[in-house]
């Protein structure tokens, strides 16, 4: 009844190709963004720190990987490494250059990650599919080893960890342990909104279309005049840029300090991969939903038994959590291999006819 596009006529091509062509969508998205900005007013510190900020960081990373895998069709398991490049670059930039604006530093560190992404994207010109996936694992292991081994990256501090220095932006402390969670939340949210909007625009334009052509069949794409070298490397660069920015935010706004383990294969790369598969390949909104799902499920599983008064040992609980998480993944893949994005589509079709389906 409320969700139907009848009567919304498009008289220009611009209008037809808008990011949200349906008026109700536009309203819903803006309302959602406003609600998201209001969240710190009601949520407490634990919720912000443990769930919301983490979710924003991973959603950003998931969008980055989805650009590469969902749109350009290049499988990558090196997400964690690219995020680590962003984090360490940001750390070096802010600690070694006096008076550098932290937002600029975060964007620059995204640039560093993009450069590394291009280097490790080079094999994609020769190899495809799972071979490429395993090749990107080389990036994962090599980069984390490098950051662990070479003291220059963590300013030779004896603990081997990097710690976000306190930095201000427009008079507000936004990074480091003493910044309020609200401020950090708003910074991450702003990044996510801006980058999601940018990604949405990217994929409907020239670049996004050439990515999709490469994904669907790269030889055919080459024949119609899309250059595989530039297109694939561009996908790697932009995806790594997103991951790098998310990595920098991960240290500066979420964890505060971390070692290379925070970026390892299971903590980051596979998790983000799960997010985009469950969210839906080739869907920006899906990446965000998938991130929410993958982050909320373990938290729910941890808190559920005590909630209903069940008292089980931590080890037992950890293993049970693992099993349930695995089962959920398998069941989800069997029931809806195309993810939340597809579920949302189905729901939308239903909504258009609701409440009079005939």
């Amino acid at each position, binding site marked *: 009844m409320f969700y139907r596009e009848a009567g919304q006529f498009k008289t220009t091509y611009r209008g037809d190709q808008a990011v949200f062509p349906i008026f109700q969508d536009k309203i819903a998205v803006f309302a959602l963004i406003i609600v998201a900005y209001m969240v710190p007013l009601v949520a407490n510190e634990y919720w912000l720190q443990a769930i919301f900020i983490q979710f924003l960081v991973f959603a950003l990373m998931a969008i980055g990987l989805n650009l590469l895998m969902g749109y350009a069709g290049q499988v990558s398991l090196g997400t964690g490494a690219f995020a680590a490049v962003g984090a360490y670059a940001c750390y070096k930039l802010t600690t070694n250059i006096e008076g550098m604006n932290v937002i600029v530093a975060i964007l620059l560190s995204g640039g560093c990650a993009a450069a590394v992404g291009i280097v490790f994207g080079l094999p994609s010109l020769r190899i495809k599919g799972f071979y490429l996936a395993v090749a990107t694992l080389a990036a994962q292991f090599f980069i984390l080893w490098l950051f662990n081994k070479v003291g220059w990256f963590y300013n030779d501090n004896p603990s081997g960890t990097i710690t976000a220095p306190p930095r201000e932006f427009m008079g507000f402390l936004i990074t480091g342990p003493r910044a309020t969670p609200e401020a950090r939340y708003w910074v991450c949210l702003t990044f996510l909104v801006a980058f999601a909007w940018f990604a949405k625009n990217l994929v409907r334009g020239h670049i996004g279309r050439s990515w999709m052509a490469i994904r669907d069949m790269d030889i055919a794409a080459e024949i119609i005049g899309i250059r595989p070298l530039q297109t694939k490397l561009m996908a790697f660069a932009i995806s790594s840029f997103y991951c790098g920015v998310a990595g920098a935010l991960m240290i500066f706004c979420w964890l505060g300090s971390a070692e290379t383990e925070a970026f390892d294969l299971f903590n980051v790369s596979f998790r983000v991969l799960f997010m985009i598969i469950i969210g839906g390949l080739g869907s920006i909104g899906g990446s965000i939903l998938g991130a929410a799902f993958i982050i909320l499920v373990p938290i729910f599983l941890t808190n559920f038994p005590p909630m209903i008064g069940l008292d089980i040992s931590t080890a037992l609980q950890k293993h049970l959590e693992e099993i349930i998480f695995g089962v959920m*993944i398998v069941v989800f893949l069997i029931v809806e291999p195309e993810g939340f994005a597809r579920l949302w589509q189905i729901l939308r079709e239903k909504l258009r006819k609701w409440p009079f389906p005939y």
Partner: protein
Amino acid sequence: MEFLESIFVAPFVEMWNYPEFLAELILVGLSTGVLYSLVALGFVLIFKASGMFNFAQGAMVLFAALTLVGLMEHGVPLWAALLLSMAVMVGLAFAVERLMLRYLVNQEGLILFMATIGLNFILEGTGQLFWGSDVKRLEIGIPDKPFDLGPILLNTFDVTAAFIGAALVIALAVFFQKTPMGRALRAVADDHQAALSVGIPLKTIWVAVWTIAGIVALVAGIVWGAKSGVQFSLSLIALKALPVLILGGFTSVPGAIVGGLIIGVGEKVAEGFWGPAFGGAIENWFAYMLALAFLVFRPQGLFGEKIIERV
């Protein structure tokens, strides 16, 4: 300059000066390589028959080894424990086919891959839930004594492991070439539809393949477990097997074996001679870099099927 010299000159000088050290590293590398091959074999078998990149192979190794050790800790004699663990792996194969594979027919490779990561979690969780997560010693009576072969120091354990690996590979080769079931498996690997149309039951084949992969995992688990104890890190050897796979080609049994040997030797020699220049611990990524460098020249791996692309 000094750094470049320590990479490009010094190691070769050392190799020339200490040939025994080099030979020893190569032998150790070969024996590790056999173990990598064992794990990689499990991957290849499943990939060939169902196009599934089975990330859970490492977890299967852990699961099988944990089951064996757990049974033995409860006083079950070795032979009975072996039979029981085999039965468990067969049961696992049936369960996987019945509850998972059946519903995932015709899905994209990536979806199948993610499903096996899910299976990976399930197996790791279940294994540790039943048998605990502390390090366990596996005593199966393989002697572990060093002995001399000319100027080279060898270990009876490594030699035995190499023989076990070789025996398994030969057994598999005979199975694939000579038995009706093996031929059916190869037919399925070549072409699903053609195999179906000559009356090969696909579901039975999948159960068979997963069973074989499970038994290969059990053997790998026994050898690795006897060497370094049965513990959670066993499941991570899946990550060691991946570069072996891309080096040898996902679809080739000989590729898995040769690839494993190359990676094993390369890793040990690199750690021995180039390790000091990099500050050690290069084993983790060296195999990947080696495989990556290799792929640039042969994108389908050593023995993989030639990739022919058409529009």
